[in-house]
């Protein structure tokens, strides 16, 4: 089945410190989802390989935002259960035609390119370790959320109908905004500001985008509205009225 426009799958495991990522992601989805979008969030124990495959087969989402621990060739979800292996063509085929966003370490080395080779239209992931700060409770402060606010700007932009290229530009700009906050902005005198700025510098430098830059989550709707001239309904009504007057006369 081809990937369905305006359909999003979010995989949000919460063990092994992954709640530091899943809490801000859930908040971003809640705050930015739009009418007409099909949104599925697999949270906590639901973020397992079986449910993932079931959702991929039944809903065929165009956008897949997956959180989880990773290695160069493997992405894992809840309980470190592997979902994708770079050398498993059956698993890779599940991601055909999809926009794949992997908030995970190291997958840009092998898994990301393998996904693109297998037919994914775009991929975002990391070449080396993706770092985050755990000095406060998950989701509690700007400090623990900051690396993820930059990372999730990509999917936030897609929720607002942007193309993958526009989303990438927004993500890089958000990295700079967060960096400025901890370097010269209001956060500069936070006790761990230096490390936060360093984490953001590091993550930004290894964030990798592969694939097509012109894909939008709702390409058909965008194309159709662009083609319809707003004056056309008025012209049709005027012609119809003129014809009616002519007939009566």
């Amino acid at each position, binding site marked *: 089945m081809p990937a369905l426009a305006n359909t999003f799958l979010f995989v949000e495991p919460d063990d*092994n*410190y992954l709640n*530091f*990522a899943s809490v801000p992601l859930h908040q971003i989805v809640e705050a930015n989802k739009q009418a007409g979008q099909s949104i599925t969030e697999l949270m906590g124990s639901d973020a397992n390989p079986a449910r993932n495959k079931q959702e991929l087969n039944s809903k065929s989402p165009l956008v897949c935002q997956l*959180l*989880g*621990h*990773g*290695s160069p060739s493997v992405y894992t979800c809840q309980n*470190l259960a592997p979902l994708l292996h770079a050398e498993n063509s059956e698993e890779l085929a599940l991601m055909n035609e999809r926009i794949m966003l992997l*908030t*995970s*370490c*190291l997958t840009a080395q092998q898994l990301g390119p393998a996904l693109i080779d297998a037919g994914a239209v775009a991929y975002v992931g*990391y070449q*080396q*370790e*993706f*770092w*985050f*700060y*755990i*000095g406060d409770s998950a989701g509690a402060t700007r400090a623990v959320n900051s690396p993820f606010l930059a990372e999730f700007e990509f999917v936030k932009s897609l929720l607002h109908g942007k193309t993958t290229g526009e989303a990438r530009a927004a993500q890089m700009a958000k990295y700079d905004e967060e*960096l400025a906050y901890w*370097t*010269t902005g209001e956060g*500069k*005198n936070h006790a*761990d*500001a*230096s*490390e936060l*700025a*360093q*984490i953001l*510098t*590091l993550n930004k*430098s290894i964030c990798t985008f592969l694939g097509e830059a012109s894909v939008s989550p709702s390409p058909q709707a965008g194309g159709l509205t662009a083609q319809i001239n707003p004056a056309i309904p008025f012209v049709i009504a005027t012609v119809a009225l003129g014809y009616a007057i002519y007939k009566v006369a």
Partner: protein
Amino acid sequence: MSKELVNRWFNKISISERNLPLLLVDGYAYTPQMAYDEVNRGTQLGARLQSLIEMGKFGTSSLEEQAIAKVRIQTILASKPQDKPLFATMSNKVFTPAQLMEEINSGTLIGQQWVTSEISRMRNIVQVR
């Protein structure tokens, strides 16, 4: 070339950054605080430090950059509670400041990643306007 530019730069960076080594002249490292003081005293050294700040450079070779970056990270991490986990990765690794320092001192891939990133951050700091 103005002293005001140096003062504006100094006031924009964080208090903790002001006492970390950043600028190098004749093999000696200077913190932003030292540079600020020298510039405002109008010394010859101050003029050279001011020139580096105006050019947005810290005046080092790549070996010296790495050495200064390590000292900066050591200074930052030494000021933290040593056994509280503060950092984690999306590959299921968790680090206390002491453990991270060990990675940096041993020159592991993770340690190198932090040193490289610190050099980028130093560049960002000296170019703050």
